[in-house]
């Protein structure tokens, strides 16, 4: 049975856009360049997280090799700039398409299996790519990596300062949020959710489960590729370590903590994991302990992530305050209807 929510599809997009408008105003508050730099890094992660959210939140597939797809985008940008003099704006679609193509190549054999077997396959892919990049000789810069010399141009002028690049990243976060929202609220999104809820039932309804799962992986690759190009042009030096197992685990952690089904989830996860060590002055060991505790707490108490849990809590509080009866089940996955 399909239950219609009283809220319009747009209502699930508005909170994310409102948060992004607020984030776009951050430079006006005069933050330090350290904060701005960390915010750019967080924004770049959030773009990749939207792809992971489509894969995990909508399709129910968790990838532990997502940083490798980010790496494909980053290396595409660096190699195009070095060998062909192709700059940022052209590298963006090319990096994105190549990452999607790699996702398709990896997806075809990997998605013949499911569940934790797929997680292991994607993890292995991440490690394999790192080995390939490390041993790629002059073409990939081997373990030392590649430099990126071309500047990012912003309305025809080099965006040498952090603020213009911050706006570029925020714009891509907004595009990613809107793209995710379009996917979630399309018939394709509904198909993915049907697969997530019950693969066999979806197949019995005539849905080509394998093809759609590969499709979701390819879509997540598109986001990862954009994130990689943004990262390469921000760091200006990339090396295989940046795309190995740990960064992939961190991306999965971010999306699970923030929540993969709401549009605010990737934003919350990206910001939390990037800024928590900074705000609490935690060293990496303490951070990992804290993330582990957060993850356990989220899995046990807030299975749809922090933001969905927050909304549920607010809703319950509102009901208690007005003393009204509980409303029908309102979706927590950013959709306007639920099965």
């Amino acid at each position: 049975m399909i239950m219609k929510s009283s809220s319009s599809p747009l209502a699930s997009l508005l909170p994310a856009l409102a948060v992004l408008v607020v984030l776009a105003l951050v430079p006006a508050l005069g933050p330090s360049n350290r904060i701005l730099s960390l915010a750019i890094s967080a924004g770049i992660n959030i773009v990749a997280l939207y792809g992971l959210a489509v894969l995990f939140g909508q399709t129910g597939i968790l990838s532990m090799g997502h940083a490798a797809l980010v790496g494909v985008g980053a290396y595409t940008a660096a190699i195009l700039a070095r060998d062909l003099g192709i700059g940022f704006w052209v590298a963006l679609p090319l990096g994105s398409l190549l990452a999607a193509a790699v996702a398709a190549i990896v997806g075809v054999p990997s998605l013949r299996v499911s569940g934790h077997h797929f997680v292991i396959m994607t993890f292995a892919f991440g490690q394999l790519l790192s080995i390939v990049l490390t041993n790629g000789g002059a073409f990939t810069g081997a373990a030392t990596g590649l430099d990126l010399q071309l500047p990012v141009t912003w309305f025809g002028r080099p965006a040498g300062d952090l603020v213009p690049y911050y706006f570029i990243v925020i714009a891509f976060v907004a595009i990613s949020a809107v793209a995710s929202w379009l996917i979630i609220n399309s018939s394709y999104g509904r198909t993915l959710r049907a697969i997530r809820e019950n693969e066999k039932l979806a197949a019995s309804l005539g849905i080509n489960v394998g093809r759609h799962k590969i499709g979701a992986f390819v879509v997540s690759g598109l986001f990862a590729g954009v994130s990689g190009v943004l990262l390469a042009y921000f760091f200006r030096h990339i090396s295989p370590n940046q795309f190995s197992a740990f960064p992939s685990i961190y991306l999965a952690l971010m999306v699970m903590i923030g929540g993969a089904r709401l549009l605010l989830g990737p934003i919350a996860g990206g910001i939390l994991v990037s800024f928590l060590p900074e705000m609490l002055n935690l060293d990496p060991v303490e951070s990992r302990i804290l993330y582990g505790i957060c993850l356990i707490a989220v899995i046990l108490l807030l299975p749809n992530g922090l933001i969905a849990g927050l909304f549920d809590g607010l809703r319950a509080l509102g009901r208690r305050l007005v003393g009204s009866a509980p409303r029908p089940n309102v979706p927590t996955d950013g959709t306007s209807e639920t099965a």
Partner: protein
Amino acid sequence: MRSLLLRSASAALCLAASAYSASAQDADTIKIGVVAAESGAFVSAGHTLPAGVGLAVKEINDAGGVKIGDKTYKIELLKRDDRTDIATAIAATQELVRDDKVAAIFGSESHDFTLAMAKITQPAKVIHFAGNSTLAKVLNPQSVAPGGEDHYLFQSEPQEFQRSGSTARGVLSLLTPLVGHPLKKSVVIVGNDATGQFLTSYYVKALKAEGQEVPEVIAYPPDTTDFSPFLTRAKSLNPDVVHFWYNGDSTLTALPQALELGVAPSYFLFGVDPGIWKERGLSADVPVAMSCVPICWGESSNANAKTYFSNYFAAGAPKGVTSSVSLLYYDYVHFLADAWEKAGTLDPDATVAALESMHHKGVVSDDLSFNASHQVTHATEVCAAAPGGAITCAMQQPPAEAPN
């Protein structure tokens, strides 16, 4: 009312005086920054950077400061922990360069962090010292020339062919009498990461230049703890020496396993200080050579280094496998201060010109200077522990030219 006016006037005067004092303080201070891993995976080498730079800053300030023209400046050191995370290293560098307006930056210990940091320091004309021999990839006479993209970047570690050359020569010359027969065959076991790959290519050439047969380089994944597959492979090649060429922490995990398996009649541990060997009560029934980056704190044959390390540890720095890495930074704070004094200005271009033309008497060498690619040259210390426990050390000069 009168009292209120008086109080207001006093408060205004106090505020004005504080503001003047603050601006005078800023005007009399040169800010320098250090970015290093004070936590995370690279902490072993990382914590030595702020310790070495901090000691030099204290010595300079205690001696009165830096005299530039007719004005004397104190140096203010701003330390930033990169948490072994490249995004944090970049954020810290952005903060130091754009917000704190530092005149110079030291670090980091990780080559790819340094290369990314240089993309921020160089356009901002901030003098940047880093002890990464991998900088040879970007430093050349064109890139460091005025207007070049790395004009303000300096490599405070010798070129890798020099370090590898002096290390290989030192290891073989110290081990040969202890083993009792000529050493002909070497197997290199190395961590398969950026630094390991880069260093190994040079070390193998250096060994071959010393007449060694090197049948195989065995690479192990970083963070390996069970070395038995790699050691078994090495043993099958019947080496005279097994060289654990990077890194110090992994090496100390691998050696006991190698001794247990009886892989070779002698070993070399790169980046392990004889001080650690003694402090941990390590022993072996075969000769074991060790090398330091660049001079050992445990049993140094260098008188200057003994004084330096005594001050370094007295300042609270812990004794670690790679404490000597601090020397890749300490000397260059003094060198930079001398360059500012010689240039008579803090202008970065004049400072670079002074650094390029000067010779500095430091701890690692009595004659430190930068070549046309902004790289230094100095000796490396190599030690060997005999089966009985006696340790001997010697400074090894680098080869004049890279082997073919």
